[in-house]
């Protein structure tokens, strides 16, 4: 960016106010050179949706789960945890910089598995973060500061829209590897392997642990194995983003399989976790960042540096959500209920996928919509082009991101027909 001194032409003279001094008028501002920022491509969709007055409007933008009535869903295990916490009358003292111990321990356990050798040897450091975004922010900045071997971060093509600005802002260079195959609406396995084989050693590769966002396309276990091997050969640093553990298949352990496999294969990964979706704790900002190290001593050094990063950002993380999550994870009865509820949410989404595909067929669409059923997790990469998306929004008040991604969580049995009708209308 050119280093221009911000200058705002003193246009129409307003009132000269004695208290403002001779040299300034009402129009001169420090911020004359500040441009209007564009709306966020994902969160901006919700804001546009809110402004729409159509009774049939649908918000398929942000990945927030809705029940079959289209309402936000507060998990029963969450309400029970809140009641438990409320009865304890705890104080509000600052958490440690790295967060609530009960939470970080169980957060790591959830991802790595209770019997993980990493946990037993204490060679991981897990800190509580401001949900997934906060975790990625800390991770990106940690790598920027300490991973001097490479500035390159390879994202799958496409990836979550916010990945790019997060890493860029941290001073990393963004690159991409083939991932989504638009001709099959599936995984471009050979393309991915080809690109990975050419990545310079020590580059950072971002992998979505499960329920890839935005495509919903995940590698199969055999494919993950090959990727793990190749990544090891290329000596790449693996950054896993796991925002949907439990949401993809409905099974916590199945969804964490790739992460655990890579660790078993000896990869020293870094991992971001979010509890926004799988516990419905969106606004409480619950997440974790883990670094798998060589040994416990290294983990201590890494921990000390993570704290140095966190302190000037926000000092220490918020208690409420972490306390709820920790209570659920550490109370067997609540944990059981949680697993059932996650399973239930995942199942509803799978059902909606099936209904959407069936309805599209009934509408008379001649396109192949198999990918709607094959894709996994909250999102469906419909294959719609930007112009078609625009029509869907303008003519049918269906809100989604420009890349054709829809959040299946926003689909219900009462609006799936309308959605199919709209999609058919813009694609026939």
């Amino acid at each position, binding site marked *: *960016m050119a*280093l221009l*001194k*911000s200058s705002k032409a003193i246009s129409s003279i307003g009132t000269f106010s004695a208290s403002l*001094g001779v040299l300034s008028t009402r*129009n001169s*501002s*420090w*911020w*004359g*050179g*500040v*441009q209007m*920022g564009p709306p*966020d491509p994902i*969160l901006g969709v919700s804001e546009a949706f809110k402004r729409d007055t159509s009774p049939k409007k649908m918000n398929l933008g942000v990945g*927030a789960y809705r029940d079959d009535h289209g309402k*936000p869903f507060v998990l029963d295990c*969450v309400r029970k945890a*809140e*009641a438990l916490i*409320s009865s304890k*009358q705890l*104080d*509000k*003292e*600052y*958490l440690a*910089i790295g967060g609530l111990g009960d939470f970080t321990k169980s957060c790591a356990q959830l991802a790595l598995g209770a019997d993980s050798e990493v946990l037993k040897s204490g060679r991981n450091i897990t800190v509580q973060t*401001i949900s*997934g*975004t*906060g975790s990625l*922010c800390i991770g990106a900045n940690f790598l920027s500061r300490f991973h001097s071997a490479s500035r390159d971060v390879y994202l799958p093509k496409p990836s979550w829209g*916010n990945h790019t600005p997060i890493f860029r*802002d941290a001073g990393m260079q963004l690159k991409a590897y083939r991932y989504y195959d638009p001709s099959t609406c599936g995984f471009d396995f050979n393309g991915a392997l080809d690109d990975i084989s050419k990545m310079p050693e020590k580059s950072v590769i971002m992998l979505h642990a499960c329920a890839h966002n935005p495509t919903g396309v995940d590698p199969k276990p055999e494919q993950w194995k090959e990727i793990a091997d190749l990544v090891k050969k290329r000596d790449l640093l693996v950054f896993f983003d796991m925002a949907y553990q439990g949401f993809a298949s409905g099974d916590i352990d199945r969804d964490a399989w790739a992460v655990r496999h890579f660790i078993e294969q000896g990869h*020293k990964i870094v991992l971001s976790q979010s509890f926004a979706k799988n516990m419905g*704790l*969106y*606004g*409480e*900002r619950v997440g974790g960042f883990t670094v798998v*190290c*060589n040994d416990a001593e*290294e983990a*201590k*050094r890494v921990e*000390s*540096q993570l704290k*140095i990063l966190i*302190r*000037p*950002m*926000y*000092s*220490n*993380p*918020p*208690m409420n*959500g972490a306390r709820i999550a920790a209570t659920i994870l550490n109370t067997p009865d609540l944990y059981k209920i949680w697993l059932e509820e996650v399973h239930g949410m995942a199942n509803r989404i799978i059902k909606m996928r099936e209904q959407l595909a069936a309805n599209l067929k009934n509408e008379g669409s001649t396109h192949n919509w198999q990918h709607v059923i094959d894709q996994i997790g909250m999102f469906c990469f419909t294959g719609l082009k930007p112009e078609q998306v625009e029509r869907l929004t303008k003519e049918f008040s269906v809100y989604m991101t420009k890349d054709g991604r829809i959040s299946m969580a926003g689909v219900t049995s009462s609006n799936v027909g309308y959605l199919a009708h709209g999609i058919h209308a813009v694609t026939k």
Partner: protein
Amino acid sequence: MSLFGEVPQATPVAVFKLSNDFKEDANPKKVNLGVGAYRTDEGQPWVLPVVKKVEKIIVADNSLNHEYLAILGLPEFRSSASKIALGEDSPAIQENRVGAVQCLGGTGALKMGAEFLRRWYNGNDNTKTPVYVSAPTWENHNAVFANAGFEDIRPYKYWDAEKRGLDLDGFLGDLESAPKHSIFVLHACAHNPTGTDPTHVEWMQVAEVMKRRKLFVFFDSAYQGFASGCLDKDAWAVRYFVTQGFEMFCAQSFSKNFGLYNERVGNLTIVARDSDNLKRVLSQMEKIVRVTWSNPPSQGARLVAITLNTPELFAEWKDNVKSMADRVLLMRASLQAKLQALETPGTWDHITQQIGMFSFTGLNPKQVEYMIKERSIYLMASGRINMCGLTTKNIDYVAESIHETVVNVQ
């Protein structure tokens, strides 16, 4: 071979290490005068009665959920928080040129402000703009601005160790000699760590120089209400600067005055020239928020918003705040009286003249070490004590310890 083999062990943050050492000390007479959190006369953390009340309201309200807040936070929180800082009837608010970003505590508000300034102030991405912080200041100020990319962070004269008060001439001198457009971090009230605030007349002098030399005003307001016990009195400086026509930032924390430390409730209040400039500023703030935490945590903001917007709860909160401030004032008076009675060498008026949670005792590092090692009284190497750590039960021991230290250690 590890990717992180070269990562050095970082030195721990001093104030947290102090608390750790205190925890491990077995001496039954130990006293923690370190971390800045309020304590009751029983030495216990205090959840404000109004907070307990509102928490119950929130838990019982089934219409509330855990959905994402907007990027800039809860609107009712942002506007009511800004009103607290600027005053209900602030002309700037009425002129629609005040906006806010809900942030994670005061730290988060400072960070957002710093990140914005680095990108958009004094040119684009101008990392060379000098940032001035008081000498001394809260130890995290430096890191916040450095991590935002500012390369030139300097001290401005503030504390006069000899006279144990404000070095006004030094302060004004640094304002006069600072390069134009430099950013100055000002403590709105209850200066941390010295507890020494400028008088109204002194603030007016500061404002005059800053206006004339086009310096940027960035207030850090972490103790509003806590200093004098009165919200409006504690906001005098911030409001005065607004009347002087400054465009400015004010980082607010609700950690202390609401006792909501771990819920991370903060607000960056932005006063702009007009609503158009404000709009553009907020749109760019959104982008910075999005790559840092996407949107802020809802629990604490909800709690504060409900309290500030419900008259009976607001009144109860003000009472709660006053009671905390009053206990601190009582401990100040008590400590000073005891030191005088003991005829401890030196003058101790600064203890009652200083304001807020902290007192800069004037003890030197050797004396501090003695206090910690020999008396198990934990305070910062700077000589800063947290008045909240004093209680009617330990104040005699502390006074005697200070006396013994001053007499025996030079």
